[in-house]
């Protein structure tokens, strides 16, 4: 399963290359002009045209990707506006834009709409299971081949399942197919559009689109600006998944981040330790009140899902705050004037950060990686720099699927039995299951439901850099070298 979570994608290569060029432009003596030239530097006169019809279209798409890199909405940006003007606007922006995703219509191929299609492999057989299975009378045999009447077809796909020749195919639109809540659809113009009323910022469309047409609006310029301002203290808050991302030790990674210009680095695992204890205490309290089950509440994608699509789940979702919340609270208490930057594996944390005044900006792991490239920092050659506060093994393991439930279980008193149920990635089926648990007020499989929007947990986030297997191995080494949150005697008081 986990092996295919993050296959290599040329679209990631393009997005990362633009980020490196943007960062170098910012650090140069002429940010605006260097930004304007990015599409021309990447596709100079006479350059080969690897992906599109002509060099002009390639440049147009690279220009739009740069717009997203500058943190603007591509949909709302006029095509005639120069990148140099947009770079200037990014510099004068006071706070990041609300919705974290933006779609490039120039890169969106406008895939054919999702439908059922009879291929040439149809043998016009005698059994005709397709005709017999279709509940809508949409299939008839014309000239010895099955034909689907689009007016009657409901796209159920039953005919495709029963065809003995596998001659009937379901044509999918990758972004629509990946979205668990129907928030991204092809508009009337045939191009993908995101309905932000429905969108839970899970990032699955970003990973799914083979044309790389869905972009995160980067906040890299905002962060670079804060770092450049000598009067500002800028503090990085690094989520646990980060320690599986780059080929170096956690202590070297801290030093590498300091080299970017950050004044200090906090592990978000520090907040996770508070989440674990608070959530365990809450679990005990809820069971004693006679409640049947509780779900975790640290995944931002899941929280958006409950708020927007499964309000009936709210009473069962833990009221405990996320590790990011507690970490940011600690940082702002210790450094009230600091600018805080959360290092995230996914899009969803951008939404959570926008709602939390203690988190100023979010960078994803692709952006952090691009920054290291832009400055020529070799993480594996950095000195080691230790964290002021050590976090527990359980907290550092939050990024691994099942890790949160395991942490809560570790601190529960022995007489309170927890039976974890793990939702390993949100999809249409797991959302149906969650709705069922909420409606029935119980879950027959257990009483502590951990929900992770991404398959594999945070290590499977859309903006991770490392492949899943090596990331898991590296993070697990770190977890195994850390102390447990409790000794037997220190379990949460009943």
């Amino acid at each position, binding site marked *: 399963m986990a092996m295919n979570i993050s296959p290599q994608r040329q679209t990631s*290569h393009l997005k*990362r*290359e633009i980020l490196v060029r943007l960062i170098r432009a910012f650090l140069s003596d002429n940010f605006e002009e260097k930004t304007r030239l990015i599409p021309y530097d990447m596709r100079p006169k006479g350059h080969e045209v690897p992906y599109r019809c002509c060099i002009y279209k390639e440049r147009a798409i690279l220009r739009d990707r740069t717009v997203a890199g500058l943190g603007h909405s591509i949909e709302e940006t006029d095509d005639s506006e120069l990148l140099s003007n947009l770079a200037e606007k990014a510099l004068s922006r006071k706070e990041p834009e609300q919705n974290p995703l933006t779609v490039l219509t120039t890169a969106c191929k406008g895939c054919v709409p999702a439908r059922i299609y009879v291929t040439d492999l149809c043998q016009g057989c005698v059994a005709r299971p397709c005709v017999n299975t279709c509940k809508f009378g949409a299939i008839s045999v014309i000239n010895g081949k099955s034909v689907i009447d689009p007016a009657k077809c409901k796209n159920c796909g039953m005919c495709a399942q029963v065809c003995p020749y596998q001659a009937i195919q379901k044509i999918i639109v990758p972004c629509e197919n990946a979205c668990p809540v129907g928030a991204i659809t092809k508009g009337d113009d045939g191009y993908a559009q995101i309905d932000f009323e429905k969108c839970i910022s899970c990032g699955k469309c970003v990973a799914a689109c083979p044309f790389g047409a869905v972009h995160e609006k980067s906040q890299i310029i905002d962060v670079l600006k804060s770092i450049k301002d000598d009067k500002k203290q800028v503090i990085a808050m690094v989520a646990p998944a980060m320690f599986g991302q*780059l*080929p170096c030790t956690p202590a070297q990674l801290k030093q590498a981040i300091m080299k970017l210009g950050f004044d200090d680095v906090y592990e978000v695992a520090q907040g996770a330790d508070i989440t674990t204890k608070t959530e365990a205490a809450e679990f005990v309290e809820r069971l004693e009140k006679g409640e049947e089950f509780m779900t975790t509440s640290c995944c931002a994608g899941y929280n958006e899902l409950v708020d927007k699509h499964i309000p009936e789940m709210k009473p069962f979702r833990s009221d405990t705050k996320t590790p990011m919340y507690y970490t940011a609270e600690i940082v702002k208490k210790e450094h009230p004037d600091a600018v805080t930057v959360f290092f995230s594996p996914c899009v969803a944390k951008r939404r959570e950060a926008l709602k939390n005044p203690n988190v100023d900006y979010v960078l994803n792991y692709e952006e952090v*990686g691009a920054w290291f*490239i832009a400055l020529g920092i070799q993480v594996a050659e950095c000195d080691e720099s230790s964290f002021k506060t050590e976090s527990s093994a359980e907290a550092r393991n939050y990024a691994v699927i099942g890790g949160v439930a395991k942490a809560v279980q570790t601190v529960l008193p022995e007489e309170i039995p927890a039976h974890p149920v793990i939702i390993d990635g949100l999809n249409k089926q797991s959302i149906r299951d969650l709705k069922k648990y909420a409606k029935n007020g119980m879950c027959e499989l257990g009483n502590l439901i951990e929900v992770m929007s991404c398959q594999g947990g945070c290590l499977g986030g859309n903006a991770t850099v*490392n*492949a899943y297997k090596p990331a898991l191995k590296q993070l697990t080494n770190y977890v195994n070298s850390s102390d447990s949150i409790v000794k037997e005697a220190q379990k949460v008081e009943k």
Partner: protein
Amino acid sequence: MAEKVSVKVCLGTTCFVMGSANLQELIEMVPKKYGEKVDVSGVPCLGLCSIDWEFSKAPYVKVDDEVIKEATVEKVLKAIDEKLAAK
């Protein structure tokens, strides 16, 4: 016995971020496929990314003396096959 083919997957920061993270599977896959005939390892920065804007051609893999730009698993396996055929 013929000389071994050497495969060096660059795991420097630039190559790693630009895609060699996904080439790590070669380190397991190549010995299974070619046995003793090929030596494969992940190596620290080969220094190929630092010249001008060459980062954009990362990740790099060296198969014997040949440098593969924008390396993918397929490109590397093809290069190994060619080297083995020539030996």
